[in-house]
């Protein structure tokens, strides 16, 4: 309902003579070549969703400020009791069928990446409804890495959380289609693709010892793509 209300509000005629502001709802992915990301997701990309707010600072040039967040995660099975250091992924049962060893100790792992973005978007007028866009944004990102052996139980099982911050940027180009134009306002659909890079998130355990203990790092850098729906008014 909130989204409907927001869209209805944005469709209201603007008092401004030009489209001075924009609000976009985004969904995006940022690729990664980090092999450790396989632990978190089978996809090689970090998804995110969020909102961008913009205002015009020059003709066709808007400043954008946004907040995006995304989460990936898996259930991880790890052997720990039979003295064998290698993982038994599947075993053959008495009927000759292979089955997975769900009796192994398991835990949930998830990472949420929150991105504060600030940058600019330039629009080239192509037709009245269709525009080409170029967007560049700096990123200040926070990531947490959470592992929990029983996400439905509070306190009695092992649960750890690590946090890290890292800067980054995205640069992308795309097209934007004004699906509905009412006076000076419009509802737009946009698609952009480009490159994104966030410096590595270095997760550390800081409470167990005097010196922080490295848990590992997560690197997000690669193809960046996003879709958005929004309004300019």
């Amino acid at each position, binding site marked *: 309902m909130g989204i409907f209300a927001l869209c209805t509000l944005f469709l209201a005629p603007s008092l401004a003579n030009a489209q001075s502001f924009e609000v976009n709802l985004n969904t995006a992915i940022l690729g990664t070549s980090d092999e450790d990301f396989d*632990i978190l997701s089978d996809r090689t990309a970090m998804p995110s969703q969020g909102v961008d707010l913009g205002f015009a600072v020059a003709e066709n040039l808007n400043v954008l400020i946004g907040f995006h967040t995304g989460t990936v*995660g*898996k259930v991880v099975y790890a052997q720990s009791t039979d003295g064998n250091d290698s*993982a038994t992924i599947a075993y053959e049962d008495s009927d000759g069928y292979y089955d997975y060893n769900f009796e192994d100790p398991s*835990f949930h792992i998830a990472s949420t990446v929150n991105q504060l973005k600030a940058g600019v978007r330039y629009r080239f007028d192509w037709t009245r409804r269709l525009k080409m866009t170029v967007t560049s944004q700096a990123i200040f990102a926070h990531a947490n890495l959470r592992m929990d052996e029983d996400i439905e139980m509070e306190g009695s099982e*092992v649960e750890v959380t690590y946090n890290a911050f890292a800067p980054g940027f995205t640069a992308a180009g795309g097209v934007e289609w004004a699906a509905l134009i009412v006076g000076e306002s419009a509802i737009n659909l946009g698609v952009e693709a480009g490159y994104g890079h966030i410096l590595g998130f270095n997760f550390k355990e800081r409470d167990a010892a005097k010196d922080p203990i490295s848990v590992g790092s997560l690197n997000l850098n690669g193809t960046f793509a996003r879709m958005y729906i929004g309004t300019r008014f």
Partner: protein
Amino acid sequence: MNKQLFLPLFALMACNPWPDLRDEWIAPLWSTDIVTLDDGVYARLPNAGALVRIGTDQTWQLVDLDGATPLSMRADAGKGRLLVHAQWPVCEDNDPSIKRVEDCPSNALEFNHELAIVDNGKRKAVASIPAHMNAMTFTPDGETALVYMDSAAGDLSVSGPIIDLSEVILLDIESGDTTSVSVGFMPNNILFTNDGYRAVVMSRSKVVVLDLETQAITVEYPLTLDADIEIDPSAAVLTPDGRYVLISIEGTNDLYKLDLEVVSIDMEALDSSPSDMSADAEHGQTVLVYRDRAQVDLITEHDFIERTSLTLDDPATDIAMGSGTAVLYNSRNDGVRDIVLLDLSTHETTEYVASNPVDSLKMSPEGDYAVAVLKPTYEGGTSGLDSYQKSRWGLAVADLLSNDIVSLVLESEPVGLEMVQTEEGAFALLLLSDFDSLIQVDLSAPGNYSMIDLPSDPAGIDASPNGGFTIAHESGLGQVSFLDPTTGKIRTTGGFATAGWMDNDVLPRRDTE
């Protein structure tokens, strides 16, 4: 307004932005084969290739092994230092762009091995000992370890360009200095003389005496004069006076008696091949049991072998020595349920019959009780409670003073059993698989037990040098509990197995190679 304009919004919302929560299988983050020392509990992290020292109250730290991955570890004789077999990758390709293990061409990648000596969380010394030297015995003073390859220990993957299968390595635990001695093919048992200055090393068809000060072989006993005949010792014991070594031979009834003072070998024909032998220092006797004979032998005079044979109802394969007593049991034949108390001064036997066959047996600290883990059997022809008991794991408590035995039925398979003696008496601490409580059994009244809640299912228990116990849990992220048996208080540390898990496998020691 045209509602179709909202369709793209719905399509956008239909994209799945949330965790896919698929399953992933990985190598274990930690090994529950923990070692408890004075300064903390040590655990291997196979996935990260690291060693962690765990303390109470959620504290832990990584032990710097200079990039090496621990493969196995054990405590020294005094439980003060940790001996860690470790390996590290070496990339023969000197391309400076190669930083990580996976960047190194497979044909240029090899692994070197060493044994690290860890003291108080620090690597104090390193010895060049390959991982296949998997067995270790400590001299009585605890300062030297005799390291050898035990062919019965499972993994026989050897490493190195030249392998000496007849080698025993003497390792100075303080300095890491090593001396290699060739003692005979496949050394498999090492005994120390009572004065602690000599080691008797058994190998195929040969026994040697090693002077631990000069680190040289002083005497060699050939077990056969025919090189075509292979003789493998199966059990050995030093007689209580320290003069003789008695050696049984696999597949024969011969008992070899090696005289360490007047170098000579005598042979005694036994009734069968002993499965276990133990020395009784209090009465100067040696106890022998046989897998295939319902008989226990006592060698009461070793100079000329005077042997007393006692008949049992069933064969016994194992001996647990108590104070002036020996407890005999059979861990290899599921048809035998007897536990026999042998009074070594009167040579009288007392038979206890457990409900199920014995899997393992431990004596209480003061020797008043024998506690046996009983294994399930699947005999036909039984029904009701009899069948219920036989088909389940059990715990038998034999009171060696009152001749009573109690067989308890357990909910699941035991994963740990330790004995503790307090001012209130003797107790068995029992851990069961898939059961998140520690069971404390009062050995004077085995039906009376108490339970201490554990944070999760246990995987094993290890005694601490300070009298406490460490419990490893079935936990993917790593969890151990510290038990004070006098108060029953438990403190738990968890999450340590995540250390270094997601770090890149950087080639260690790259600059110094």
